[in-house]
């Protein structure tokens, strides 16, 4: 994707993820090192009046995959998110994004959202990346 190809309001192609599984949460716990029991142990979640929920950083990881499917990993300068809603096993996350602003020096500021299939926003973020020029 080139700097000249995008305008403010340009929407990036949607990245659709597979439904989140409990096994994936175990796998993510091992990979990341986040063994918070609310993601892994039914009894602890129930005692807290909750259900097993996905790690927020798993959803942010999916959101970053969306960003790196749009712009080269190497060109990402900043990425910041807010975790708005909890995500549970079985939910299907999709990553959508659009350009908010084109700045000087080939810098693009864009919005990126991780939503479930009902459109509920789970993680909302902004990223800043440089895009290469055509010439």
């Amino acid at each position: 994707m080139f700097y000249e190809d995008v305008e403010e309001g340009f929407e990036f192609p949607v990245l659709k993820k597979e439904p989140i599984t409990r096994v994936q949460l175990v796998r993510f716990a091992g990979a990341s090192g986040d063994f918070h029991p609310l993601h892994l142990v039914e009894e602890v979640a129930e005692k807290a009046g909750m259900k097993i929920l996905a790690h927020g950083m798993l959803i942010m990881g999916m959101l970053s995959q969306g960003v790196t499917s749009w712009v080269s990993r190497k060109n990402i300068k900043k990425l910041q998110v807010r975790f708005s809603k909890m995500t549970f096993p079985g939910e299907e996350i999709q990553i959508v994004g659009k350009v908010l602003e084109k700045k000087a020096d080939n810098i693009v500021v864009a919005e990126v959202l991780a939503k479930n299939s009902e459109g509920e926003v789970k993680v909302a973020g902004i990223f800043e990346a440089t895009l290469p020029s055509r010439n």
Partner: protein
Amino acid sequence: MSNVKDLIGLEFEPYSMAVEKGKIKELALALGDDNPIYFDLEAAKKEGYEGIPMPPTFLQVIDLWGGMGSVEKVEKLGLNLVRVLHGQQAYEYLGDIVAGDVLSVTSKVVEAETKTASSGAMDIIVTENQYRNQRDELVALTRNTLLHRH
């Protein structure tokens, strides 16, 4: 905790960890991210890297496997684990980080306050981390916001 503001300036023990190819692959697989740059050196080189790059959120791996675990960190902050939520996370990438690099991290609490909303009171605690590589280049900055519901 008497006053959450007392946490401002609290520095965690510095830590250091190598960026391992195996951990990069493990994280990419857990995320279901099949970008070949995380698995194949040639693909990484084509994107301009000298080695396998880390996925954007990989610094969490450095923090949790190289430093204090999330559970221990929450205890050190004096918070109740099941009342803690991850509110926000921000990354700033200042240089490439690839497999084989060794990152040294400093981490401290930069903001801490109690806010009252309609849903009740909560503490907001922001930790800032700085990541330097083996050449002492500052390669990344992060800000982590934890919410602690009362």
